[in-house]
């Protein structure tokens, strides 16, 4: 026991007391949030106001357009867009892009221009000249007959690449032209708005027993959790493998085996690295919770209605249990691989299958989030190898009956016992085999014989 603790302490310190650990632990959340924040920041850098001249051949669109482009109108639209993007995660990339453009808006300065009596060609020449003198950034030509189908609304701009400005202007113009057409057809815009409003489609999640659930923010929280488990399992499984390969490569195992029992050495390593992983996970989860809390608070402050996922103590306990189950399953697999191979390159090749197992588990989560009560969700959430990732997600999405959770713990616990038994045998023999990689039949023999 004392030697086990000595090994545990060394392995824990070796992982935690390094710059790599400090950097990944504290920088990863920063980098992750940077992925979200930096684009927002970049877009929110307000460009200079676009100086635009409107050549309205029709005569009645320009006032409406100017009104639509007023700062108050743009701000209101931005808020609307923000709300929509929060409530709809499945929007396409294109739509998201458009929405974030809408959230930002652009500002315009109107340069007066009187097109009266001039031909479109003449207008173009005149205004292009003014752009050349840097009095203008862009101009828009609104055709005379806005009712016709094939009319072109030419937007000429030095800043044609600014998609924020483009999309703001396009939206405002569409609205202005539509309003004008409605007015010409004698239809009140208010009436049309009233008739055309969307139905109030409300999702009412039910529990297994048919009761209405209070909140429905579980799924996305569940996905974050699944990702975290996946990342930590992949990182620490590899860490175990490289630690074992190092001892084998440097022949330290010879001295270690003459000092302590191989089983103690292996378990000390697994538990020590596992605790290090748990430390990192705890820091990450706290950070995520803080960020989410902060994000939700600021969203709520700006008048958006976002539900907080309800996280109970039992959920945290389940999460820890399944994380540990997953860790020990994958760590023993990696330990087994580490004692078979002679160097990290060889180890890398063998590390692929367990990574694939993890990935498949991660993909199963999507199906489980969509339908947490299907029989498919039941099987993958109790099956060894997949349960550690899938079950916590299922618990968050829609907590299954307790017996299913217990079954998952039992099955995976049994898998760990079996794997540890096999891995300790392979470790004992493999660590003293230098020079050549063990073949699968050899490994099988070690497991059966020793």
């Amino acid at each position, binding site marked *: 026991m*004392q*030697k086990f603790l000595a090994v545990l302490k060394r392995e824990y310190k070796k992982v935690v007391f390094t710059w790599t650990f400090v950097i990944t632990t504290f920088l990863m959340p920063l980098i992750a949030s940077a992925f979200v924040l930096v684009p927002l920041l970049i877009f929110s850098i307000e460009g200079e106001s676009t100086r635009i001249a409107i050549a309205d051949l029709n005569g009645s669109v320009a006032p409406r357009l100017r009104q639509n482009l007023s700062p108050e109108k743009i701000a209101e639209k931005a808020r609307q867009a923000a709300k929509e993007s929060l409530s709809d995660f499945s929007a396409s990339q294109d739509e998201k892009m458009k929405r974030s453009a809408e959230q930002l808006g652009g500002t315009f300065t109107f340069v007066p221009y009187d097109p009266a009596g001039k031909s479109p060609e003449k207008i173009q020449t005149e205004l292009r000249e003014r752009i050349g003198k840097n009095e203008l950034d862009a101009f828009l030509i609104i055709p005379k007959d806005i009712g016709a189908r094939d009319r072109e609304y030419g937007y000429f701009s030095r800043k044609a690449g600014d998609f924020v400005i483009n999309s703001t202007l396009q939206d405002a113009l569409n609205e202005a032209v539509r309003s004008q057409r409605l007015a010409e057809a004698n239809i009140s815009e208010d009436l049309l708005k009233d008739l055309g409003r969307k139905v109030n489609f409300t999702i009412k999640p039910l529990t297994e027993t048919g009761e209405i659930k209070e909140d429905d923010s579980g799924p996305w929280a569940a996905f974050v959790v699944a990702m975290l488990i996946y990342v930590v399992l992949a990182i620490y499984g590899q860490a175990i493998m490289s630690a074992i390969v*190092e*001892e084998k490569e*440097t022949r330290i195992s010879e*001295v270690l085996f*003459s*000092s302590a029992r191989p089983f103690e050495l292996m378990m000390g390593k697994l538990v020590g690295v596992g605790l290090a992983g748990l430390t990192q996970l705890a820091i990450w989860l706290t950070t995520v919770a803080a960020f989410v809390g902060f994000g939700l608070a600021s969203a709520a402050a700006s008048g958006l209605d976002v539900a907080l996922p309800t996280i109970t103590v039992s959920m945290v306990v389940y999460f820890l249990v399944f994380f540990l189950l997953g860790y020990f399953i994958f760590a023993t697999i990696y330990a087994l691989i580490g004692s078979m191979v002679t160097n990290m390159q060889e180890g890398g090749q063998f590390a692929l299958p367990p990574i694939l197992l993890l990935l498949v588990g991660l993909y199963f989560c999507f199906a489980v989030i969509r339908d947490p009560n299907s029989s498919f969700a039941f099987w993958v959430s109790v099956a060894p190898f997949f349960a550690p990732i899938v079950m916590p997600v299922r618990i968050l999405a829609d907590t299954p009956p307790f017996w299913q959770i217990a079954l998952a713990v039992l099955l995976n616990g049994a898998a760990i016992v079996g794997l540890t038994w096999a891995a300790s045998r392979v470790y004992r023999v493999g660590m003293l085999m230098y020079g050549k990689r063990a073949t699968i039949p050899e490994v099988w023999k070690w497991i059966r014989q020793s």
Partner: protein
Amino acid sequence: MDENKVTLKADSITKSFGDFTAVDSLSFEASAGRIFGFLGPNGAGKTTTIRMIVGITVPDEGRIDLFGRKISPALQDRIGYLPEERGLYKKMKVSDQLRYFAALKGVAAREADKRIDEWLGRMDLSDWKEKKTTDLSKGMQQKVQFISTMLHDPDLLILDEPFSGLDPINVEFMKEIIAETKSKDKTIIFSTHMMDTAEKLCDDILLINKSKKVVSGSLREIKESYGKNVVSLRCTGGEEVLADESLAAKVIDHADEKEVFLAKGADAQNLLGKLVGSGAQITKFQLIEPSLNDIFIEKIRG
């Protein structure tokens, strides 16, 4: 060998890997206060035998007793083992490394710190205490590893080729420490294929080849049993006498002298008389024992 001081006793131990028998019913004894030379060519089964003594592997047959008890994990704390294949954690500081190995041998942290400082001072490595292995030269790494085998003050010290890679000054230094350990009545097993080193250090030897015992016993007795049948000769001329195979079975030329192995039944006096008669100028004519190296080569070549 003083029977009362026998600390390690192997009784016909056998170890096989598949069809290959690495150690074949080997028996030997090692005693406290003596250096036991464990000799044999590469692949003879030395490392396999040592691994069974230190408890890394278990013999298929036979039994090993250490300090009067059957070997067990509990006895590992009383053994210090310096394997031939050396290794330290690359990115760990010397001090942390030594603390870890001491903890694995059951030495309390405070006691370990005290001993680490003592040993590093003695080995002239104090300035390197907080450095990582990768910053150390090969020789320094060897010394650090040697310290790690000594930290728990083992009663049985097993050194497998301890001098390889060390410069002559450090070899001498290491020999001093081995001698000091011996004087503390510890048992030392010294495994090597460097015969002249073994000859100078060992009290007892065990020579194995192809998994089997070839010779064992006190070095003195073994050498005496071979008798004095070699002449260390320095002379000019007399070539035709030395070419006579009824007198000299084999002549080895060294830089400035010859080693003459007398033929069976040949007499040293007779050889000397013939050499003088042939007019050779003799400056040295000494009857000597065969070296351990000679015995080794004769026994291994069969």
